[in-house]
């Protein structure tokens, strides 16, 4: 099984630790991970802001770069959804193969590898925010929760209004900064009310917004990508 990691531009530049966690996790599960260097951005910022034409070369690049891999694993619900839902609208023919082989990380673990207990250890209280594109475009359902529930030491606490958007929305966060900030403040308040040490999602772009809001408010809760929880083990923690 030839598996490629599509790191995504945000993880690559701002959250490389998430990518390292994915590599650690998949290698622990016996998967050989490839990282084609020609990859870059899925084109979502351009496409969702109305610059479809600017997204075309990036969609074709994706299809080209990941040709020859059986599975493409993406540690981002939003970028995976961009590929799966929007690439057919950009260039259905050129991207057909890569679209069908693209999986968000938790989908890959649960659906392709068939595991929910990945042998992880994370001795903290965690609340889970299902990000919109993972929830509604990919239909991740309870896959992330099942993975988290199997983590030793982890106590999962419920988040009120969990399925409400955090207010990020890409360029929405700056084009409609007031509404975005109001949504972010409500999300942060609900997160604080859980008393959790960490808030977990499948998407660092949403976490960038949630985390930026939490630190500005002086909250103790820290943002953490699900890969970084699943990569942890008792041995590594010692």
């Amino acid at each position, binding site marked *: 099984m030839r598996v*490629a990691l599509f790191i995504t*531009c945000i993880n*690559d*530049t*701002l*959250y*490389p630790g998430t*990518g*390292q966690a994915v590599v650690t996790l998949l290698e622990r599960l016996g998967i050989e991970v*490839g*990282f*084609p*260097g*020609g*990859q*870059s*951005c899925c084109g979502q*910022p*351009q*496409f*969702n*802001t*109305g*610059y*479809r*034409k*600017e997204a075309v070369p990036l969609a074709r*690049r994706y299809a*080209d*770069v990941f040709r*020859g*891999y059986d599975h493409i694993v993406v540690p981002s619900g939003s970028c995976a959804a961009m590929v799966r839902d929007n690439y057919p609208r950009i260039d259905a023919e050129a991207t057909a193969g890569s679209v069908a082989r693209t999986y968000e990380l938790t989908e890959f673990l649960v659906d392709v590898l068939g595991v929910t207990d990945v042998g992880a250890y994370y001795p903290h209280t965690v609340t889970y925010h299902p990000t*919109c*594109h993972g*929830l*509604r*475009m990919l239909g991740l359902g309870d896959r992330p929760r099942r993975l988290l529930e199997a983590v030793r030491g982890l106590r999962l606490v419920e988040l009120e209004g969990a*399925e*409400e*958007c955090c*207010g*990020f*929305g*890409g*360029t*929405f966060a*700056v084009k*409609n*900064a*007031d*509404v975005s*900030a*109001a*949504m*972010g*403040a409500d999300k942060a308040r609900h997160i604080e009310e859980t008393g959790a040490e960490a808030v977990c999602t499948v998407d660092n772009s949403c976490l960038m917004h949630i*985390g*930026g*809001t939490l630190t*500005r408010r002086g909250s103790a809760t820290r943002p953490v990508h699900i890969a970084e929880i699943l990569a942890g083990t008792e041995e590594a923690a010692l």
Partner: protein
Amino acid sequence: MSGTYLGMPSFPRAAAASTRDMRLRGNLRHATHTIRAKRAKAVEELGDWEQLRAAGAALKNRTLRHLDHYLEQLEAAVSAAGGHVHWACDAEEANRIVTELVRETGESEVVKVKSMATQETGLNDALAEAGISAYETDLAELIVQLGDDLPSHILVPAIHRNRDQIRDIFREKMGSWGRAAPRNLSDDPAELAEAARLHLREKFLNAKVGVSGANFMVAESGTLVVVESEGNGRMCLTLPETLISVVGIEKIVPTWQDLEVFLQTLPRSSTAERMNPYTSTWTGTTDEDGPSAFHLVLLDNGRTDALADTVGRQALRCIRCSACLNVCPVYERAGGHAYGSAYPGPIGAILTPQLRGVQSELDASLPYASSLCGACYEVCPVAIDIPEVLVHLRERVVEGGTVTVRGQKTTIKPAKGHAAERAVMRAARWTFDHPRALRAGQRLAARSRRLTPRRLPLPGAGKAWSDSRDLPRPAPESFRDWWLRNRGPDTAGHEGDPE
């Protein structure tokens, strides 16, 4: 109603004010969360919801594809049943037709059934200019009208008001429109409803002309359908001598049987009821029963142009249930007035720019009034992929292109104010399409990361972000550099751009 949507600010500017109005935020949060939860329960009860949703979408698609045929069938059926059919290509023509019809009756007052089409055309203002008083009789529309206000929700136009505010409006304003409210009126809902009932009863009994819209028009029989909760609509539909209905051309269904689907999905989606309390249907006129004159004004007002757009046309499937408003996190915080049209919320954000175009600053800002969270699409009973249409309309805003205006293919220019953004998007695309340049940029950012502040003082996107959120810092080493250092170049991959 003297409020107007003309000259309203762009969505972000209007929302900047409304997000700070804590009473408005509280009213909207309470109302939308209540109805949201009830709707979810009402929909869960049905085992075949997804099939009903698909059937509704398919019925509307098929009808819209053959709209010309069904409109002519409807016109023939209404005429055969004693009604008169008028065609209005835009709001102005519709208002002119209605004004003339009222004048012909010699009356100077009309009672109105809650109607989105006449809100869209601004009929009340047009009638007022002609010296005709239009009385809204839907309870929430009455509150809006008495308060000299604008509706902020499709189903619950006064959703932005709470009981205290309604009591004050009734006490202060009812007397100048008709029967006054008791001076000691409290904010008890039953007392408020009683005051409205007594006030409106006078209007119903005196009215000679009624004006309505319709939820559906059945082409095969020429029957119009209004669904409502209060029964006030039925008063207006049955008591006056003349009834004038202004209806968008997309409200057609081919047969009575097709109503079966929508009369299940509409009440559950809008009021979370299994069945709405009043469903009124009428076909032309009937001797000694109801109005003796019936006029149907068929309103286009941009609908045919929207129909020409293969992506945008799905907005015409809308049955005005408001489910998308009630789940929308943006609507909940910005409020309905920020959308600057009779159609607020997610559906308004895709409908208004199609009906009015994207040339004004406000209309060009509407497709961006969404985080694309997709909650609206999830609840839509006719499966309108609102995020898809929003993105499609964003492309129209920033790129311009070919659109249909009054039936003619027209090329429009990109909306103003996007030049800097376009340059950034192009530069980003170029960088992402040249991974070596991307890597160089990442290394530069990593080296200067200590210089990246958590807040930015200068105006622009950075400040818009960092006013409420700390800025993220670039990592000391990008993932791709970490990979190269630890694993070396991936043999299967390639750099993708020439040296």
